[in-house]
């Protein structure tokens, strides 16, 4: 019974050995001592959720990343190819670690765009840091990635968008400016929404606004009973979901049960095709770039490459992140006289990058005190009766 396994075991051993040897052969290894020539094709890895519930986000970001690499790299005299790693949100942050290991082992990967989700950053930042790999995120906004006594992001982590410590209070101040006296704050038992609600709650309470916190499981889609709990005199319901469809559903159920509160979504609810109940608000770290004159050429080029797709709001920060990464690589190449010693050389140059006119409007540079952008702001939009988003702050 057990012995019959012997033959199969033997074949399994040979298969395993074969796999190991072929896998070993496929891992590229540039000579360690000499570094990489800047004339060869360098790889930049992108870690984002391309499938799963947040897949729309990752794919938006990918289309802009590809566009940025295609248009910006030749201008800097670099040959860059983009490799991807998928972190579906349903699998939790742990998968980001295996991907980190994969990219860290590949010597020709010199920088990472992302991870897009804050949880993935927390899980993999240590690995990137130990490898000297700078990772520039275009959408990981959790506050304690760069701030606080026990920050989860390492010095190799950068982001080109402001953290939730700006978004939460910005949203709260806006609500106060609209005369809010009673606000309900939701969180979905995951890091993004909890951080946002915590930050917003602090500001609201300090201004004497009545605050109710409600916590919902991430897998719920029936909000009827939660809607019932919203007081009828509440002015706003802060609903930082990462699924715009949920925000839409919730807003409708609020109306159904006759509550007058307006829904205020975070940057995760930002999708005019799904969330379009008039009167609601969303906040986002990027303005609508179609209103920025200096971006006309970029937008035209992107639309050419991606016919029939809407601009989206997660894309442009990705463009900026790629731009920062490519610029840092260029600086490192120049400093190394056409040779890139190792990826730590790229890391050392990231913070030096200054972009006079960035795609998000205005100049871009990193703050001296942290790896966050200097003077970044959040923008607040209101949904109009025709479903379009209008900037109101």
């Amino acid at each position, binding site marked *: *019974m*057990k*012995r*019959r*396994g*012997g*033959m*199969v*075991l*033997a074949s*399994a*051993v040979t*298969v*395993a*050995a074969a*796999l*190991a*040897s072929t*896998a*070993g052969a496929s*891992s590229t*290894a540039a000579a360690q001592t000499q570094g990489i020539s800047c004339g060869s094709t360098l790889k930049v890895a992108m870690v984002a959720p391309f*499938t*799963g519930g947040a897949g729309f986000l990752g794919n938006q970001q990918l289309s802009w990343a590809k566009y940025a690499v295609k248009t910006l790299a030749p201008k800097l005299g670099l040959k860059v190819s983009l490799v991807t790693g*998928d972190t*579906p949100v*349903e*699998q*939790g*942050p*742990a998968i980001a*670690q*295996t991907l*980190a*290991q*994969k990219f*860290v*082992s*590949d010597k020709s990967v010199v920088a990472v765009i992302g991870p897009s989700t804050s*949880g993935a950053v*927390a*899980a993999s930042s*240590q*690995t*990137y*840091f*130990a*490898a*000297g*790999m700078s990772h520039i995120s275009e959408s990981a906004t959790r506050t304690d990635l760069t701030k606080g006594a*026990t920050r*989860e992001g390492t010095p190799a982590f950068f982001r080109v968008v402001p953290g939730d410590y700006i978004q939460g209070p910005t949203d709260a101040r806006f609500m106060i400016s609209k005369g809010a006296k009673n606000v309900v704050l939701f969180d979905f*038992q*995951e*890091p993004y929404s*909890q951080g946002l609600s915590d930050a917003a709650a602090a500001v609201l309470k300090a201004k004497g606004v009545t605050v109710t916190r409600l*916590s919902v*499981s*991430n897998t719920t889609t029936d909000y009827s009973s939660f809607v019932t709990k919203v007081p009828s005199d509440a002015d706003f319901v802060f609903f930082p979901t990462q699924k715009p469809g949920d925000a839409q559903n919730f807003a409708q159920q609020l109306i159904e049960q006759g509550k007058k509160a307006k829904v205020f979504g975070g940057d995760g609810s930002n999708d005019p095709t799904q969330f379009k109940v008039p009167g609601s608000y969303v906040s986002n770290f990027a303005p609508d770039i179609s209103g920025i004159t200096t971006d006309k050429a970029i937008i035209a080029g992107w639309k050419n490459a991606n016919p029939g797709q809407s601009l989206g709001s997660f894309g442009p920060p990705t463009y900026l992140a790629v731009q920062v990464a490519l610029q840092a690589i260029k600086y490192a190449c120049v400093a190394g006289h056409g040779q890139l010693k190792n990826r730590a050389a790229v890391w050392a140059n990231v913070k030096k990058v200054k972009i006079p006119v960035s795609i998000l409007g205005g100049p871009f540079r990193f703050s001296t005190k942290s790896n966050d952008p200097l003077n970044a702001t959040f923008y607040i939009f209101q949904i109009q009766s025709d479903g379009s988003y209008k900037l109101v702050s």
Partner: protein
Amino acid sequence: MGGYDDELTRPLEGALEASTSEGATSPAVGRDEWVARHGDNRARRGGPLGTLEERLRVVPWWAWLTLFVTAASLVPVFSDSGYVRRVAFDIAIYMLLALGLNVVVGWGGLLDLGYVAFYGIGAYAYALLSSDHYGVHLPSLVSIPLVVVIGAIVGFLVGLPSRRLTGDYLAIVTLFFLQLFLTVTTNGDDIFGHNVTGGADGILRLDPLNLFGHNLPVSSGGGIFNVAYLYVVLAAFVVVFVALRFVNLSRTGRAWRSLREDPLAAEVMGMPVNWLKLMSFSFGAAIAALSGTFVSALNASVFPLSFSFPLLITIYTMVILGGAGSQAGVVIGAILIGTLLEVLRDPGNSRVLFYAVIVLGLLAALRLSLRLAVVLGGLFVFGLVVHVVAGSIDHGWVNGSGGSGGQVADFMARWVVVPSAPAGWISPVSYITLVVMALILTLLRGWVRLVVLVPVLYLAAFVWENVMLAHPEPTRYIILGVLLISLMILRPSGLLGEKRVEII
């Protein structure tokens, strides 16, 4: 409930099964299945393969184990990529988990759908005992055995309902236990105001393994995976494998076997049925908890979402594929499925794998024969014809290509139709057509089947290239689902398992 009436038809079924799946020379009517199996009396496979098998069967199990572990330890020698070594570590963990599940399902005959919760409990227990969370920093040689004991106790407690519940209901209770675990860990950052489990953020900055006073750093220079962790897990694997082997050969093992064969008779004969069930639950849970500690230590973090239902299905597929009840089997199952899942992550490799599987599958089903040549040739020609026709109707229909994948992709691009801008409805329509046709194929026989096989395979290649490669996530789970269904229908004993496993 199906025990005794099966008895009447089983010898016949067993004989038929033996003749078709073992390749015995002639059907034996009326041979007792139990005697045949236990006496290892089976007709020898014909030809050189049979002789080889006979020769290999003489080698004792511990020799195979040594050979296997040596080969596994040599993986880091063959590849200095941290990624490959990390994957080897992941597979070693899968092997441990599969061994543990084998105890519950294969030996105890209990359908435990909450198994992953024990894995999670081990991981979280380690996190609470060796991190800054509560400031407790026990050395690993203390915390790991402690976690194993905790796992065994929790397994025992969860197994208590098994005394009163039959198989289906036990499955549901254990499934709900898993849900409970997930709910508690996800919300555990606010239990009466105390942050116990870190909630959805998980617990970070866990201590690395600390053996004999030495800290094993998680990464060795430059963030690369520290190979020492692989060796630690392999060592644990050897210990668990050998320990379980001895348990199986002991009285407990024999009691489990008779319990599986006929629970009512076992009870009537005075065996402590409940105790045996609880033991298998406990053992399985302890092994799962052990695996949890290693993963926690390596990742230096633990998150609730890592212990989800898809992981459970993955481990079940490993156990069923390898053969529930056979230790060597589930280890092989773990290796196969683990490697498969990792390969599927990369589109270039997936493509190669797909075509390799098709060719190997045809080889296995049709053997080296005229039929194989006809099918392969027909497939090749069919593909070329369709490609040419589609290309001449509209060049855009064959213009797109996967992008990555190198030479194989370029070659295949000439054969498979890959539209450059596929319409939205292509994906669902082609997929559903493929599923329906594949099901119809199972109903056909003879040469009709071969004829229909060719377009179905071509359609499968089309769907793979255009639909599934773009979405590796659902694809991997679809493959697991299909594997489970086909295994249960075609070969429930898996590769090396016992012929039947009854649940209590």
